[in-house]
């Protein structure tokens, strides 16, 4: 009787350990696949990979993902310009006026955005911004991405602000600061690492998003957006290029997708690492 219980325990421990390994195994396989296949492509294409346009489909040439990479940079920039102020100000409002009904609504509604499939955000922007402008544009894509970013950044900034001990607020008021001085000079100053972490995590989320871009930026695979006026034109982005090239039967485009996946993974992991570093160095 007692031995049977022991045996069951053994089996259970073995099974859970194996399943736990199975749970993380895909991570290694994905990273290895991306590193090997993408690395091979990058090695073959050289620096051109970062700057050239994709070669024609089916050709023996590779070309590169220049326009998509530049597009992703523009998207990150524009999304930050729209998304950071919007999320930070919303978070401040939610924290500072938490008893006001508007703040409570804002909190519930923005955090619900987290649970909404991002493809729907693409649909929303298509039905509003794109149909108003009459064509796809990097701007429309950035608006969609800013909406994707919003709930992440709002909740991080909110938490960072809540963590500032109350006594610093009191100290601020006691020397005659106004509410906005207390918020922006004291609370945000003390919480600045948390705020920065929220912004970085938001960026890490949006640079790899594909679904919101499907019906918003078009895929202008050969144009290099260079100035602010190109923002109103269609563009391309790295994740969108991967999505579309992966589905083609052309070897050289599939290779480009792998190379692009490596670049994208590196960017995202770097942003996550940056976030961890920012958070760790906090001291009060």
């Amino acid at each position, binding site marked *: 009787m007692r031995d049977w219980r022991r045996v069951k325990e053994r089996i259970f421990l073995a099974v859970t350990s194996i*399943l736990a390994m199975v749970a993380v195994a895909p991570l290694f396989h994905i990273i290895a696949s991306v590193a090997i296949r993408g690395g091979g492509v990058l090695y073959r294409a050289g620096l051109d990979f970062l700057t050239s346009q994709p070669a024609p489909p089916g050709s023996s040439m590779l070309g590169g993902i220049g326009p998509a990479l530049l597009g992703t940079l523009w998207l990150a920039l524009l999304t930050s310009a729209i998304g950071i102020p919007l999320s930070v100000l919303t978070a401040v409002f939610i924290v500072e006026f938490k008893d006001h009904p508007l703040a409570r609504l804002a909190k519930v509604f923005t955090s619900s955005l987290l649970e909404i499939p991002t493809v729907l955000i693409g649909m929303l922007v298509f039905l509003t911004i794109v149909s108003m402008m009459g064509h796809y544009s990097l701007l429309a894509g950035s608006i969609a991405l800013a909406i994707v970013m919003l709930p992440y950044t709002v909740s991080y900034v909110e938490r960072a602000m809540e963590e500032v001990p109350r006594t610093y607020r009191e100290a601020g008021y006691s020397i005659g600061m106004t509410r906005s001085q207390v918020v922006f000079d004291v609370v945000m100053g003390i919480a600045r690492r948390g705020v920065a972490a929220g912004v970085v995590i938001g960026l890490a989320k949006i640079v790899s998003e594909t679904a919101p871009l499907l019906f918003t930026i078009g895929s202008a695979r050969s144009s290099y957006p260079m100035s602010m006026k190109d923002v109103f034109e269609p563009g391309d982005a790295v994740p969108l290029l991967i999505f579309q090239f992966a589905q083609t039967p052309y070897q050289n485009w599939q290779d480009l997708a792998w190379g692009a996946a490596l670049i994208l*993974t590196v960017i995202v992991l770097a942003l996550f690492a940056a976030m961890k570093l920012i958070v760790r160095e906090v001291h009060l």
Partner: protein
Amino acid sequence: MDNTGKMPAGDRRLFYSLAPAAVISMGILVVMTVLFIYYSIPAVRVYGAKLITTSTWSPSEYGEPSYGLLIPILGTLISSIIAVVIALPLALSAVFFTEEVLPRSMGSVRSAFASLIEAMTGIPTIVYGLWGLMVLSPFLRDNVYQPLYRYLGFIPLFSCEPVTGSTILTAGILLSIMITPFIYAVVRQSYNQVPRTYKEAILALGATRYEYARILFGMIKPAILAGALIGFGRAAGETVAVALVVGNTFNPPTCILSPSYTVSALIANQFANAPLYPYMVNVLVLGGLILLVLGIISNILGVMYLARVRYVA
């Protein structure tokens, strides 16, 4: 109750300068819901219940197009259920492994394992999709689906010949990999909230670690349910990774070895060209509305279950 009236002038100025941002942020979901309902109405008016009870999808620029979302809706449900069924044991094992199997003395190994799983949420979904399409699908077709069909083909679920690796089952498996870390995070948090004294009491009774796990996971059952629901919501809404591996074909997903469709994949593939066809935008927006409702409901339920754990502990 509006209390802006009582605020000092300085506060009121801050209130009114921040309020627009809050209103915009809040308005996004409201506008989305209203707009989606508004766009869905014509589709419902023209096609009625047929939209979700039939499965013909023949858009036409001129004649009489007919649209039925039955297959994609079933596809979404079945692939997400497969995902949860696979991910749940993986996530629970991973929680038990981090918290109980790895010895307390190996704190750094534990946190390393936990951050590995966390890192899985950081991998872009499009990279999951690319890997799923190019690596996972061919592997599953040759090593899993073929044998399943050959030896278990008498079971209806496995009764169709796997021609490609892009099937509803592949979508489910890929989704399970993607949602495991989310379920893990939800369950682990509750697991750690169980007071130490309970854990010690169970061990003091002379329970084996198997019995211990059964009791502990029993205590946090609502959290496990919550994790499953939240994972289900994520799986149902996932778009690009699924669109790459589900096969994008209007086959009924009753045999899980055949290519099929999900609502999100249908939207991803067809929405951009939808304005060319009468009512297609409306029908696809209705599909989006279904996803919206599914996502919100599974999340609300999940949060409710989570709240119940806190009450117990």
